[in-house]
C-alpha cells in the first residue's frame, strides 16, 4: 500500500514535531510513508472564512500531489474533514468539472487515529508515556469524521499512561479558525471553560488530534502559567522508553523540542 503523509501547512510550519512523530510511529509499525514535497494546504482556512475562490488552486494542487497513492494520512481531524466534505464543493462552486473529477479520484484521507485503528487494525502501538493525560475530542474529529472511539482506544493501550476523563469533553474549545480572531471575546470565554475543565482533571498533558485547537487551549494554559502542556496524539503514540516524547511544551518552554 502506497501511503502518503499530508502534514498540513499548519503543522509543517508551527508543529513539525507532530509530523516527525507520525513518521517515527508509522515506520515503527512497519508502514512506510512518503511525503510528497509538492503538498501545501487543504484550503480549510480560506474555505471556512468565505474565500472559496481562493481555495481552487489549493484543491487542485492537493488532487495532483496525492494522485496515485492508496491512502493519505494526516495529523489533523479538521483538515481531513475539509478534504472529505468540502473539496467537492470547491470544484462545484468553481464550475470546474475536471477538478470535480480529480477530487473524486482523490485517495481516501484518514486522520491518524482512523488510519491506525481502521486501516492498519492496531490499537496497541507499543507506546510508553508515564503521565497523567486528558483527551479533548476536537469538534471536526468528533462530529465530521465521527472518530469517537479510535483516539481513546489508542490512548488506553499506552503503557504507563494515567488517562483521565475530561468533563464536558465534547463541548467546543472556542478555537474555530478565524473565529478566534473575529470573535476573540467569545472564543476566549469558551476557552476559559475548557481550561477550567482541563485543570480540574489534574492532568499534566492535554491531548487532541488537532494542533490548531491545542494551540488555542495551550495558548491560554501557557498564558496562565498552569504548567499543563499540550501534545498531539501522534507524539504520545510515538513515545517509547528509548525515545520519550520530546521536551515539554509548558508555559515557559512552549516552543520546540
Amino acid at each position: 500500500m502506497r501511503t502518503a503523509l499530508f502534514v498540513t501547512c499548519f503543522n509543517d510550519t508551527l508543529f513539525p514535531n507532530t509530523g516527525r512523530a507520525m513518521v517515527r510511529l508509522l515506520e515503527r509499525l512497519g508502514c512506510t510513508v512518503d511525503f510528497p514535497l509538492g503538498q501545501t494546504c487543504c484550503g480549510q482556512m480560506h474555505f471556512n472564512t468565505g474565500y472559496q475562490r481562493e481555495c481552487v488552486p489549493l484543491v487542485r494542487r492537493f488532487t495532483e500531489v496525492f494522485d496515485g497513492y492508496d491512502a493519505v494520512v494526516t495529523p489533523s481531524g479538521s483538515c481531513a474533514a475539509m478534504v472529505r466534505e468540502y473539496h467537492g464543493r470547491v470544484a462545484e462552486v468553481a464550475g470546474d468539472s475536471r477538478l470535480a473529477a480529480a477530487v473524486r479520484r482523490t485517495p481516501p484521507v484518514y486522520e491518524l487515529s482512523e488510519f491506525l485503528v481502521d486501516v492498519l487494525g492496531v490499537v496497541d502501538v507499543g507506546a510508553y508515556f508515564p503521565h497523567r493525560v486528558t483527551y479533548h475530542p476536537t469538534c471536526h474529529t468528533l462530529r465530521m469524521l465521527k472518530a469517537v472511539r479510535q483516539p481513546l482506544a489508542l490512548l488506553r493501550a499506552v503503557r504507563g499512561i494515567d488517562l483521565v476523563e475530561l468533563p464536558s469533553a465534547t463541548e467546543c474549545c472556542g478555537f474555530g479558525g478565524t473565529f478566534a480572531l473575529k470573535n476573540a471575546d467569545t472564543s476566549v470565554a469558551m476557552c476559559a471553560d475548557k481550561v477550567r475543565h482541563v485543570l480540574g482533571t489534574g492532568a499534566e498533558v492535554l491531548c487532541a488530534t488537532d494542533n490548531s485547537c491545542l494551540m488555542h487551549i495551550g495558548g491560554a494554559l501557557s498564558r496562565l502559567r498552569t504548567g499543563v502542556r499540550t501534545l498531539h496524539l501522534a507524539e504520545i503514540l510515538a513515545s517509547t522508553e528509548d525515545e520519550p516524547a520530546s521536551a515539554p511544551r509548558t508555559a515557559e518552554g512552549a516552543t520546540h523540542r
Partner: protein
Amino acid sequence: MNGTTFLGMPAFPRAARDALGDAQLRRNLAEATRTIRDKRAEAVGELPDWEELREAGRVLKEHTLRHLDRYLLQFEERVTAAGGTVHWARDAAEANRIVADLVRRTGRSEVVKVKSMATQETGLNTALEQAGVRAYETDLAELIVQLGQDRPSHILVPAIHRNRAEIREIFRREMGTGAVGDDPADTDALGDDPHELAEAARRHLREKFLRAEVGICGANFLVAETGTVVVAESEGNGRMCVSLPETLICLAGIEKVVPRWQDLEVFLQLLPRSATGERMNPYTSTWTGTADRDGPREFHVVLLDGGRTATLADPIGRQALNCIRCSACLNVCPVYERVGGHAYGSVYPGPIGAILGPQLRGTASAVDRSLPYASTLCGACYEVCPVKINIPEVLVHLRARVVDDSRRRPLPRLEGLAMAVARWALSSPRRLAGAQRMAAAAARLLRRDRPIRRLPGPLAGWTDARDLPVPAPESFRTWWRRTHP
C-alpha cells in the same frame, strides 16, 4: 438602539463582548440551557428510531419546499372551503397592514396573542400600536418580555435571560401600577416562587381573555390537505386565544405548510422532544375554518413571504426553511450559551438565526454580515437538529456570500489582502518553504525562543488572552528533505 426592537444593533462581536461581561446573564443562560439540553437528550434517547424520524422530517420538509407552490394553493383552497380567508403578504409591512386592517374592521382596540415567531419577525405589536390597537401577549415568557419592555432572546423561551428574581421585579413594577389594569394589592406581596409568579400572570391575563374579541396566533404547521392551522404550546393560553375570540387571525410563514394531516405524526414527535424535552406537546390546538355556535366566526390566515421565496432559490441555503423552531440548536450552541440571544440582533438568535436572518433580511447591515461568522463551526447544532439542517454548511456558504459582496467594494479590506497573500504563498511549496524560512529567521533575529505574548492590530485579539508559539526553527519539510535524501 430601540428598547423593544432590534433596529440598529451593532455587529455580533461587539454585542457579544457586552453580553459576555454580564455575569447574571451568563449564569442564567448556563443554568437554563444545561437544563433543557439534558431534558432533550433524555427524551431523544428514549426513541430507538430517532435517526429515522429525523430523516423522515427532513424528507417531508424537502418535498414540501420543492412543491411549495402547489401545497400553498391547496391550503388556500381548503381554508376557503372551510369558511376562512387566506391573505398573501409579500413582506412584513404588508402582513402587518393586512392584520391591522382586519382588526380595525372588527371595531376593537384590543387583541390577545399566542406566542408566535412570525409576528415577532414582522414587528406586529408595534404596527398594531401605531394603528391604535393594544396587543396582549399571553404566553408567560412573552408576557415577561412585553412587560419588561425587553426583547426576546430565545425562540422557545423568550425570557431565558431572566431569572425568577428579575421576573418578580418586572411583575411587581408593571402589574402593580394600574397601568395594565391590575390591583396593586396583589403584587405587593409577590414572591419569586415559580408557581406564585405563574399565578400572578394568570390573574393578570384571565380578564383579558374573557374580554377579547380578536385573537392572533402564528402556526407551527399549516396542513394543506385540510386547511388546518396547528398551534403547539405548553400553557393552554394558546387554546384560549384560538377558541374564545370572535375573530381569529393567524400569521405564518409560507414554509410552515405540510402536505398531509398524517405528516403531523412525524413532526409532533420531533418537535416536543427537541424543544422542551417532553414526549408529547401539552396543548396542540388544530383549527380548521369556522363553525356555527363554536369558536371564532371569522378565520383569517395571512401567509408571509418575507424573503422566503428568495431563500428557496438558493440550493444550499434553502434548507434553513426546514426549521420547525424547536430551538434545540440554541440550547446546544456554545456561542449562544455564553452570549445569549440579544447579541444576534434579530428575533431568530443562535445558530438557526445566524443562517435564517442573513437570508430573510439580506446581508446589507453590519449585524447581518457578521452573523455567519458567529460560530466556531463545531457542528453541535447539526447533530441535534430534528430536520437535519446542516447549519455549518450553510454558515460557510453565507460567509462566501459576504466575502463575494465585499469584493465588489472599491477598497480592499485588510482581511481580503491577508487571504490573498496566504493563497499566493500556499499555492506553491517553494513559496511556502520561503515563508517558513523567513518566519524562522525573524524569530531568530528577535531572539524569540519563548512564546509570543503580544501582537499588533487585529492579531491582538489572539494574544490578549493566549500565547502564541513562534514558528519552528526547522519546518517539517526541511527536516524531511534533510533526513530522506
